[in-house]
């Protein structure tokens, strides 16, 4: 009995542990950003798929040395460059991002090389970001290695960029003073257009707001939907789909989503814009060049273009908000997207924002506004 029990407990424990290795890992066991350590039982990279999986797992864990060991050395990428390219620089969105997961799609495979498309999902402070990247794979003896092609960033030559800062500061003064001596009006802002769109996810309110004053304004647009009986269905705000700080005469698109509320249920939309005086800076100036509507690989309409930083300071996280107009000049959609690389002085970065299929045919023109986050001025 004793021996039987001992054998049973040992065998059952070993069997359960082995079974544990083959069970699907649970998402509820993984936190992001905490060092997880390496695996005691790592499979051998004997297929392109497995080799790329191991490489991406090492990159995910920021185990650079080990990941660099998975890379074919032929294309002259050093560990430092690989690390910098992967984890970003200049306080860009990528520097805040963690690779959360990935899916691999083999494109082709021969005896000595292979091509795999990785659909990577990054967790960032501004929401999840999807990235599609093709990796070349190379056989090295009986294992496979990743051909890591570095993304070429155009080097900006050293130069002197004149900086003439234009800034507004808010001076509130002291506590004392007679009645009415320090009254300052809130900036005058106006919603210049509003349109309710019925999308697959629910009602979407899109439009534009402008600052009609001579001082910068902080704006946020709120919308309240009510039904036929006047009952409030939902109240939402433009959140990050607006440029909150508007300089004089600046126009920003806005978009307010009401997921799960069909437009047919909505009888009334009440708009509310609340401006406030805030300190602001007129720099940097970011040009939007080469804008045109194009098709992506899946055949969806996208607005592509490039952002060009015309200032002498780095823009860490650029945010593109585009409004699309129909033939009557009415705003019919607003899309936005974050750029995961920083805009260095006089540098440029490409962007693309999607247009829904149902609206793509109606789009006649568009307007792009660039919002930004700067580490220095935050």
């Amino acid at each position: 009995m004793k021996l039987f029990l001992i054998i049973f407990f040992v065998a059952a424990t070993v069997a359960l542990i082995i079974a544990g290795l083959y069970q699907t890992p649970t998402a509820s066991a993984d936190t992001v950003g905490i060092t997880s350590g390496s695996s005691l039982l790592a499979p051998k990279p004997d297929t392109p798929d497995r080799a790329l999986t191991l490489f991406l797992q090492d990159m995910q864990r920021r185990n650079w040395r080990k990941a660099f060991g998975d890379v074919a050395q032929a294309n002259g990428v050093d560990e430092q460059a690989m690390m910098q390219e992967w984890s970003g620089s200049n306080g860009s969105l990528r520097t805040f991002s963690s690779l959360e997961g990935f899916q691999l799609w083999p494109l082709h495979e021969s005896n000595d090389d292979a091509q795999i498309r990785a659909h990577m999902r990054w967790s960032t402070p501004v929401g999840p970001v999807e990235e599609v990247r093709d990796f070349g794979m190379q056989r090295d003896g009986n294992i496979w290695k990743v051909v890591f092609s570095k993304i070429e960033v155009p080097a900006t030559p050293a130069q002197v960029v004149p900086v003439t800062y234009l800034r507004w500061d808010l001076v509130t003064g002291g506590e004392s003073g007679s009645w009415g001596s320090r009254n300052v009006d809130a900036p005058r802002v106006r919603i210049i257009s509003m349109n309710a769109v019925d999308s697959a996810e629910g009602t979407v309110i899109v439009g534009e707001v402008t600052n009609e004053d001579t001082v910068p304004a902080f704006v946020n647009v709120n919308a309240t939907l009510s039904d036929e009986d006047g009952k409030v269905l939902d109240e939402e705000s433009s959140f990050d789909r607006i440029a909150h700080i508007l300089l004089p005469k600046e126009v920003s698109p806005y978009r307010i989503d009401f997921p799960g509320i069909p437009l047919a249920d909505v009888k009334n939309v009440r708009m509310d814009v609340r401006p406030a005086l805030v300190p602001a800076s007129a720099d940097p100036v970011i040009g939007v060049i080469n804008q045109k509507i194009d098709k992506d690989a899946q055949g969806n309409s996208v607005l592509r273009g490039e952002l060009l930083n015309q200032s002498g300071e780095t823009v860490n996280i650029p945010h593109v908000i585009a409004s699309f107009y129909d033939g009557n000049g009415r705003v019919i959609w607003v899309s936005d997207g974050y750029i995961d690389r920083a805009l260095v002085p006089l540098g440029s970065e490409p962007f693309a924002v999607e247009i829904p299929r149902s609206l793509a045919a109606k789009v006649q023109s568009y307007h792009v506004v660039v919002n930004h986050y700067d580490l220095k001025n935050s």
Partner: protein
Amino acid sequence: MLALALACPTAAQEVTVPRSAVAGTDVTLSTTGSGKADFYLVGPGVASKSKVSLGEEIRVPGDQLRYAGKYLAIACSATCNSGEFFVTAAQPASLAFLVHPSRVPARQPDAVSGVVLLFDKFDNLVVASETINFQVKGANETLFSRAISTHDGEAWFRTSSGKTAGAVRLMAAVGDLSAQRALQQVASEPCHLRIKAQPTAKGIEVETEPVRDCAGNPISDGTIVTFTGTDPEGKISIDAPIKGDVARAHMKDAEPVVISAACGVAMSNELRIDLKR
């Protein structure tokens, strides 16, 4: 206390009160009868009780009469008697001058308003009519100057904004008292936006001519001018702020390009540039 007074039947002693008094000044009340009595004074912000001798004058110190309004004096011995009197505000000691707005575009009719409220040293509203001298002065002009009498303690004016951008001083004075406010008169909508372009080694340098409103006031720095270019590669747009009356943008373009600009409701001329020619 009022109920107490009303409940008291008329008695031998009487309280004689002045018809009116001025806030902060002593008041003397006379009584008839004899013996001791309780004296109550009830008014805005005060309720006091003291012992008095009937037949003698009662002196109410000024610090008990600081607030304008109706006061009730009650004397009670075996029975109670009372009298009412009004305390009015003292001489104006301060004025509140409220001006709206704090920023105003030039040449706007009835865009500027101001209101004055007069108070004495105890912050009582002075309802007696006083004449307020209003003056609104721009950099080079007097926009408004008028003497206006207060009604129920306030006087107000409304006027148009001036032609010239800059600080505007608004003054209100009565006797030795005066208050001064400032508002910013700013340029109106841009007028006649014109742009010019210059090819450089790196592309095209586009800039506006000085941007002004229809009265010739320079548009405020920081105002956004949107430059738009169209070339075979696509559309170019740059939101550039005005700095020193002029907005500038740089377009990296070697292709033929059509450039225009807009600021508020103003549209610029259109430039066609072909660097290859």
